């Protein structure tokens, strides 16, 4: 990565076509409570290793993707359309 991101719809593209948002987290239910929301909005696992994050193919197909990427090696293991991969359906 860092240089190229594979988009499931467009293929391998330069990083500059994308916008990265950060951790692909499940949005809590509206009544999940302050602690759960605090966790969602502010706290991050920030692991050294595999990480699921949201990338937007802003200058391409404009789809949001969930990209599984290693934060130590920058290797991308997988990249899926976010609509097909909402966090609750992910293992």
């Amino acid at each position, binding site marked *: 990565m860092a240089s190229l991101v594979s988009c499931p719809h467009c293929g391998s593209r330069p990083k500059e076509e994308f916008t990265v948002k*950060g951790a692909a987290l499940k949005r809590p239910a509206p009544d999940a409570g302050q602690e759960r929301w605090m966790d969602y909005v502010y706290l*991050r696992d920030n692991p050294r290793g595999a990480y699921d994050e949201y990338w937007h193919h802003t200058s391409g197909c404009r789809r949001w993707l969930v990209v599984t990427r290693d*934060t130590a090696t920058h290797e991308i293991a997988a990249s899926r359309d976010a609509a097909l991969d909402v966090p609750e359906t992910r293992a």
Partner: protein
Amino acid sequence: MRYSALSVFLNGLRGNKGWGPAWRSPQPKPHYDVVIVGGGGHGLATAYYLAKEFGITNVAVVEKGYIGSGNVGRNTTIIRSNYLLQGNNPFYELSMKLWEGLEQDFNFNAMVSQRGVVNLYHSDAQRDAYTRRGNAMRLHGVDADLLDREQISAMLPFLDFDNARFPIQGGLMQKRGGTVRHDAVAWGYARGADMRGVDIIQDCEVTGIRRENGVVTGVETTKGFIGCGKLALAAAGNSSRVAEMAGMKLPLESHVLQAFVSEGLKPFIDCVVTFGAGHFYCSQSDKGGLVFGGDIDGYNSYAQRGNLATVEHVAEAGKAMIPGLSRVRVLRSWGGIMDMSMDGSPIIDRTHIDNLYLNSGWCYGGFKATPASGFCFAHLIARNTPQETATAFRLDRFARGFMLDEKGQGAQPNLH
């Protein structure tokens, strides 16, 4: 041995055989009053001030690599205190005041050079934002001057005033801002702390945090267990990983920021200058290289390397600002891992775990904060209350809604 012109002269006559090590390389003792995780600028400064200001000398700094191997040795060396918010401004000004007396204080020439920092503005809106900022600085007695185009042109005649996409209208100047020889900061603090009894233990990676009855009692390391009264984390980009050993999740992401140096040039740019129409900031080192940087790469990373797109982005802004850079060559790029916080401001606080103290969230402004960060962290560790300029840097500010968001970007670290 105290460093001075005389000692340099006398040692020179004797073939420089008389110089001893700048700091010892001790084996860790079984127990210290305070163990500091992270031998970077902030960790070493904390140890120095603990010893010097608070009389706590039974201190170890444990560092997984060599001292200064993190961000203190891989930044663009800029110091400034041009902050906006009340929670930040006095702290950074404290840091500036400490920089101003630092070298005499720790007897090491870190080349603190108050060459001035100019932030260019290109629109009325930017001018207004700098007016607000400059006034906030002045309210706290920090020097700030709003310069117009002619004043900028007299200072920096090689900027693009004529052919620019976003013409320069003026700039906000902090004359007391400038640069410091970054590695020397780590070395100076290390030497100063070592002289006061602090053990600096390099090549010693923390692998676990030991707790008994919920209270931190020491750290497991690659050199064995080291017990401590208080444990202070100053691990910058690795803060989340160290905190995880204590079961804590932090409001941080680790991001890579690249910095660059050009080939050596004869004196060209005297002050630090930042572009307002793109992310680019630049100064010239005493050796002649232009030291410059831009935006973070944007994605979480623990790899100390960046991508080419960001390099190009930075270069484009550089040439847009200074057309004469076109045939200057960029020599080297490197990357540091930034502990980007959720509001762009740091955290210096106790934690919910007894005896565990946290210093993190410096984003990409940690270098200039080094002295105050060390001072305030030492204060917190020694006195258990925040130093008065660091009262806003609390860990619970996110839950309570007291964010310190200079840029107003919200809870997305890569936007700060």
